[in-house]
């Protein structure tokens, strides 16, 4: 294994060469898959006691990017979801609002309107979500439109086709271009780990996205199975840790898709804490992309508070 060459940041500068990028990515150590699975399994057995659980459930609500990404989304549904984002449990004002509402660009105006003054951010998926298979101009136009409509955060997808074909430079340049368009808006880069096949690819793509200026790296679109898994999240968290050591920049993490239970969410938080420590235990640096998770969190919160097992029908569906 070659020792990584010392890098200055922005890691690759503004005039990055394909050679520099290759050297940077090749310096990424390979992932020990067996060790990843073992560590994830070991951390999953950790017992979370009542006070910690209360805190974790509350934190998970604050970290949730409440998401609806369906062809049948309507402004009405988005408004309904926005109400839920502001006050997840209408009967209990002590439950904090979620971090953000994540919608398609066309739904951004409705979301912005419904969330005004609430502190809940509006995140828009852009760049020809979910495939990313479109010319760069289209992707940039998509992003600009979302921002113009008032989105605070952009969830972009990388071009997996180019990545798998080995054209890392293209992927890098696209992220940089979107980053420029975003300006101060928060940029989350979706790797779609379900399509990257190997942990080594996930790790490389993570390092690539962070070097290109991602504020967050995100596992999946939710449109491909498998979506977020704990092993793949651990690989990305370790990449974030390495990147932070290398550059001093703290990039956020967002597992998305397939996280449906509070128990699972708490296991993600354990991974997060054990890998990156308490500095990352905040909605500024960790989010859950989810829709049905929120209801399970609410149910568990009420269970912890009352000692009575809850009924899913008592909680609003959207």
């Amino acid at each position, binding site marked *: 294994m070659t020792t990584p060459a010392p890098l200055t940041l922005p890691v690759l500068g503004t005039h990055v060469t394909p050679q520099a990028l290759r050297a940077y990515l090749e310096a990424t150590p390979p992932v020990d898959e067996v060790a990843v699975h073992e560590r994830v399994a070991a951390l999953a057995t950790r017992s979370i006691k009542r006070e910690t659980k209360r805190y974790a459930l509350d934190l998970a609500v604050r970290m949730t990017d409440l998401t609806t990404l369906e062809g049948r989304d309507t402004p009405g549904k988005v408004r309904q979801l926005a109400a839920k984002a502001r006050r997840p449990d209408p009967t209990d004002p002590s439950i904090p609002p979620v971090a953000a509402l994540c919608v398609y660009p066309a739904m951004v105006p409705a979301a912005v309107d419904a969330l005004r003054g609430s502190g809940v951010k509006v995140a828009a998926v852009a760049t020809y979500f979910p495939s990313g298979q479109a010319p760069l101009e289209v992707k940039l136009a998509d992003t600009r439109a979302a921002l113009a409509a008032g989105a605070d955060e952009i969830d972009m997808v990388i071009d997996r086709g180019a990545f798998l074909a080995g054209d890392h430079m293209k992927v890098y340049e696209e992220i940089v271009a979107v980053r420029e368009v975003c300006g101060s808006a928060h940029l989350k880069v979706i790797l779609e780990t379900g399509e990257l096949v190997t942990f080594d690819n996930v790790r490389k793509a993570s390092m690539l996205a962070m070097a290109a200026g991602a504020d967050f790296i995100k596992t999946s679109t939710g449109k491909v199975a498998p979506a977020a898994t704990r092993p793949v999240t651990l690989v990305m968290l370790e990449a974030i840790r390495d990147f932070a050591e290398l550059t001093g920049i703290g990039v956020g993490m967002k597992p998305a898709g397939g996280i449906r239970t509070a128990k699972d969410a708490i296991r993600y938080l354990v991974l997060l804490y054990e890998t990156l420590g308490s500095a990352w235990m905040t909605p500024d640096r960790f989010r859950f992309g989810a829709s049905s998770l929120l209801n399970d969190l609410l149910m568990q919160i009420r269970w912890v508070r009352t*000692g*009575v*097992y*809850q*009924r*899913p*029908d*008592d909680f609003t569906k959207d």
Partner: protein
Amino acid sequence: MRVDVRKTYKLFIAGGFPRSESGRSYPVADTSGKVVARAAAASRKDLRDAVRAARGAQPGWAGRTGYNRGQILYRIAEMVEDRADTFVSQLRVGGRTRAQARREVERSVDRLVWYAGWGDKFVQVVGNMNPVQGDFFNISTPEPTGVVGIIAPEEPALLGLVSRVAPVIISGNTAVVLASERLPLPAVTFAEALATADVPAGVVNILTGPKDRLIPYLASHRDCNAIDAWGHGWEGLAEIEAAAADSVTRVVRPPRTVDWTNERLAQSPYMIADFVEIKTVWHPKGL
């Protein structure tokens, strides 16, 4: 010398036979105090899982025809009959003679067959076309109430269990059963009969273990639509009703005394009706 291969008695949740989540078991003793087996001691988390399984299975089970549910109940009867010898030896643990135990198994089979017959008939008995003034039809039909928590009696361990499970599930409810704590073995064998009788996973879930610890969680569980307290008796019933009232869970009270062997008192289509909701629709008459 050959070492006996002894059966591990486990729970029955979602069609599978898991050990208790707690990893605990408890001794089952015969009348002389000799420990004959260890049964799984269900925890409240097992109860939670069982209710979730029952909830998941309920729409599919209710969506079947009454005729089909009747067929499946009959199939359960066949499976119980087939395991008669096992049941007899397990019932003898509780002090029954061989003949008494045999009689209990026979009664249990008969009861299942009896309720199986009601599968496609009780709606006609419980439902009605109501006379109303005006140009309307007014039709009442029973619908299953949903997930029913059944507290099975300590004894008779098999007949009591069967007598309460059959009327609950025949109408399309699903059940979470707290089996006899002292004599749990027939309940586990009954679960094996269910598992081989084409009963869909989750329709009946059977927990063995400390009833006193499980009942408060069952009674207060908001996703449980009814509690059958026949096997519980009157002592402590008020606590169950108070816990159930918060989520408007129906509690079916037991009679003052129960004679489980009496066909007139321990089986009735009205026991099916105890676990249904009556839905009434108005329909315009004429063209």
